[in-house]
């Protein structure tokens, strides 16, 4: 098993967090994982992306240049990374913000109304968790249970109140694909 994922969007959309969640969940499931951010001269509101590789074997390159799956959270990211998906791969589009359709016909495209769904669930900052849930369900790379466990470990103490709303977003995303 070798899953190479690229997650892209603008700063503040939780793009790096999506990648970290996939990596942490894969790690918890006993797989080899790498997570590598793009860390050029980025600015607030600028583009951000990260590469995640999950494998049963030793991982070579950590920068994903050909992806099994790509998650895009904004339009410039769709334009930049659409061609990175290998034929037969999967593309997840945050259709709340991206109104264009993918021009690829050799991949599976998932249009996830992530922002809309997150707001419907009362968690306006949870769009990244919605699309993460969709990704996990569609690719089966990591289980939803691993993601729920991570959310519980991440939000503790004063922040424990965020657990349920984040799990709700992941669950809702999974139901959308």
């Amino acid at each position, binding site marked *: 098993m070798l899953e190479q994922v690229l997650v892209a969007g603008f700063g503040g959309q939780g793009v790096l967090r999506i990648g970290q969640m996939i*990596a942490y969940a894969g790690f918890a499931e006993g797989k*080899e*994982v790498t997570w590598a951010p793009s*860390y050029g001269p980025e600015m607030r509101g600028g583009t951000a992306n990260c590469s995640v590789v999950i494998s049963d074997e030793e991982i*070579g390159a*950590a*920068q994903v*240049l*050909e992806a099994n799956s790509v998650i895009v959270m904004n339009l410039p990211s769709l334009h930049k990374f659409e061609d990175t998906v290998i034929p037969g791969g999967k593309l997840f589009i945050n259709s709340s913000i991206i109104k264009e359709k993918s021009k690829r016909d050799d991949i599976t495209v998932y249009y996830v109304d992530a922002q809309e769904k997150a707001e419907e669930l009362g968690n306006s900052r949870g769009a990244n968790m919605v699309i993460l849930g969709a990704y996990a369900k569609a690719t089966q790379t990591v289980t939803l249970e691993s993601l729920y466990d991570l959310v519980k470990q991440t939000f503790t103490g004063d922040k424990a109140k965020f657990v349920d709303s984040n799990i709700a977003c992941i669950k809702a995303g999974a139901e959308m694909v």
Partner: protein
Amino acid sequence: MAKKLMKGNEALAAAAIAAGATHFFGYPITPQSELIEYMAREMPKAGGCFLQAESEVAASYMVYGAGGAGARVITSTSSPGLALKQEGLTYMVAAQIPAVVINVSRGGPGLGNILPQQSDYFMCTRGGGNGDYYHPCFAPASVQECADLVTEAFDIADKYRMPVLILADGLIGQMMEPVEIKEATEKPIDKPWAADGGHVKRGEHNRINAMILPADGLEELNHVIQAKLKDYSENYVRYEAIDVEDADIVLVAYGTPSRACKNVLKKAKEEGLKFGLIRPISLYPFPKEAFDKINPNCKAIISVEQSCGQMIEDIRLSVLGKFPIKFFGRTGGNPIIPDAVYSYAKEVLGGKA
């Protein structure tokens, strides 16, 4: 300690504290920022000293001072910062001061950019300061190796009373991987030479000094330094060699490009081609012996570097004309793309490049 996910920069810092480092001096620079941040947060908790210096030059002399007084001391920086630290490094070699120096390298020349690049190879392996010296230089290719090499670097530094350099490129510093930070197994050794006031009788004193005026005295010091390097070079050559014994093409790469080369090897195997890889872990001493294991009928060796070609000189010195040597490189912070290396290697194999 159980395995956890950490950035290379964090692992370098965590391993240093676990290895008993008590002093950190540095000046912030991307892409090693997480290292100094980790030190600022964790070193005081461990009872050690974290101090942000006013410049890289100052930091390197704080290391000189702490190391001279016998402390386990570490500093970290990125490429242009290491250029500034070179003066301190040659002084540490002369005064025989142990220290660990980390370079999480970025793009150059000049201020360059903050993207990963390997164009500091010469500066890190040849000794960028004045005088006749080298110092050990290791290049990790994974987060685990970052941690393990730091642990070992402290022991080597203490054993030989030399600065030891770790050269990690920016991507190794920034990426997260599972890592286990091991507790130090060897106890820090006694340092009877240290200028700490505790090792000498009243009226005597230990001198930490980088200036020796008499010709014979300085020549003797140079012989001492060379003897240490000879002993070190015989004992600390590190490399990984994969499938070189029957390879038609051997790639040579360290750090991040070596990981791309592992993808290349996999693809070559799938397509029935015989590719091998030599991954130097010690850059000084360069693992010359690895090249003796190469298939005598190998068609070519390809140096794969994120630079304009620096390690290739050590490969030439190791091979001494036995095989044709080619080069594949990217610079400016651009990544080494496995498919591009593979296409180039196939051209070389077909005699077209």
